[in-house]
């Protein structure tokens, strides 16, 4: 066998390993029959049934809302933490902040989920408080997303040319104007990328959500996971196909944003 065809074979096997299962799901979302292992003809009936499935649609709606809110909160908090860590020099608690954010990234999600659940339960009992619901998922996802956004913002600020900010000061811009007109526009792609990462993390998280969700607050991955345990349903295949589409689109946008940022330098 020539080295060229060997390379092509390796490439094909690699891609099959990575994307084969996903393609399988996509293909069978268009299957006529109920069986997910036997092809019986092309149909879009599962997409139609999906559109009538209130439970799945409600879960999808909640997932999107939770992902948007938590990604936005995570971006704001992560940007602040990123600035604090890379711009404020040495301050009291700097090591603790950096370490705590790193811990969120490295801790197993099961531990993080358990810790958050315990925290919510204690807060609840002290305040006789609000109980758990969708808001606890938002808090949990903000915690996780913020750690990632901080990472992205710190990386961007590490190679940020400070003389640009000095030039703006020199030309008569007050510090708030420097931030709004120079710093912010230049780190905007990083913030956008960070938001997307947080959004996607929230959208496909099942572990944290399962721990902290209150009764009635069920996100899409939780529904998918529980229904897959009860037996495979072609509607889930259709749903998965739509999510793959959204995910691929988000990745393309992220690549485009980061690419633009690269070219600017």
């Amino acid at each position, binding site marked *: 066998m020539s080295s060229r065809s060997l390379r092509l074979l390796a490439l094909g096997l690699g891609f099959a390993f990575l994307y084969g299962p996903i393609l399988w799901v996509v293909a069978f979302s268009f299957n006529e029959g109920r069986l997910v292992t036997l092809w019986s003809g092309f149909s879009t009936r599962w997409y139609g049934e999906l559109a009538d499935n209130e439970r799945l649609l409600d879960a999808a709606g909640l997932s999107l809302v939770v992902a948007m809110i938590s990604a936005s909160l995570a971006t704001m908090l992560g940007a602040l933490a990123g600035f604090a860590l890379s711009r404020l020099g040495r301050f009291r608690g700097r090591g603790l902040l950096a370490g705590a954010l790193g811990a969120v990234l490295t801790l197993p999600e099961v531990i993080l989920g358990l810790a958050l659940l315990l925290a919510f339960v204690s807060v609840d009992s002290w305040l006789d408080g609000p109980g758990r619901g969708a808001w606890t998922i938002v808090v949990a996802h903000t915690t996780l997303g913020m750690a990632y956004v901080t990472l992205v913002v710190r990386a961007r600020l590490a190679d940020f*040319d400070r*003389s640009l900010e*000095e*030039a*703006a000061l*020199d*030309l008569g811009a007050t510090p708030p104007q420097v931030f709004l*007109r*120079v710093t912010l526009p*230049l780190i905007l792609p990083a913030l956008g990328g960070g938001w997307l990462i947080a959004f996607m993390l929230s959208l496909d998280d099942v572990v944290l959500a399962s721990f902290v969700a209150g009764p009635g607050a069920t996100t899409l991955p939780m529904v998918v996971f529980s229904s897959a345990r009860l037996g495979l349903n072609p509607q889930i295949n259709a749903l998965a196909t739509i999510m793959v589409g959204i995910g691929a689109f988000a990745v393309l946008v992220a690549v485009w944003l980061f690419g633009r940022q690269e070219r600017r330098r």
Partner: protein
Amino acid sequence: MNQGALAVEGLSKRFGAAAVLDNLDLAIGAGSFFALLGASGSGKTTLLRLIAGFEAPDEGRITLDGADLSGVPPYERPINLVFQSYALFPHMTVADNVAFGLRRDGLSGTELDRRVAEMLALLRLDGLGERKSRQISGGQAQRVALARALAKRPKLLLLDEPLAALDRGLREHMRIELKRLHDALGTTFVLVTHDQEEALALADRVALLDRGRLAQLGTPEDLYERPASLAVARFIGQINLMEGRVAATGETLTIEVPGLGAVQARSAPLSVGAAVVVGLRPEKIDLGPGDNAREATVTDVTYLGDQSVYRLALADGVELRTARPNRDGPVARPGERVTVSWPASASQVFPAGAG
């Protein structure tokens, strides 16, 4: 128009234990083209940042036309800076870069457009206004940085190593451009550079900084022909150095140099017996008979096109370098015996051990 006189009084700046500027006094005349020259670590960049307002001095003060700048933030100083890296805003067009400072002054509409167009024309950037600032060449970026800094009509313009990033041909061109701008605007220009050639070629006054202190202040000719110390003589241009002892004083100094005997040198306030270093610029040495004539052997010839550099071995290990224009090719070959000479007025005498 006689504005932009800067005075530095007793300025000190420390970073940790190291004194970067040490009780520095300096006066920069309104409308002059002034150079702050120094090696890295001389404190010239710190002085630039203090003048621009990015750092605050530990002691002393800076005044502009008599007004104390202490505590005045950079965005309120009538001083603008051309950054070494140009620091053009990459997310803006060339025209928006130039307009940035003017907008901060509240200009808008036709008045803003007029001022921007005026600056683009002054720097010969017409037609580039709509380009993104990362889509232009290095030479153009330099001119945009100048246009942006000059747009606010500062009383004083700071230039941080403005020619360092340009290639040779462009550098020559920018030098002429900077002189033209200075003549046209009458603004005080303060050039900060480690490149003595740049300082000598551009400035009418040069301050040489050495480890946070002023080593010498004068015209380019003062620094080259009449250096205040051995350190200055070494920093500016090439120089041959010979150690010796003062044998007699008078209209010229007679200096006993081991291996060469008595050498006549330019008069200096030194007493008989003092250990000295005699400095001699390469181009002031003649190949041929004259005062202070000595026999020498050519040990090496470096051909540089327009000129050749000759390395000469004199008696007792004394070595001299001289340069001659290649009017009809090199004037001597390696191994040749030649006579070297120099007028007493060509040599500079410094006390040994100082610097």
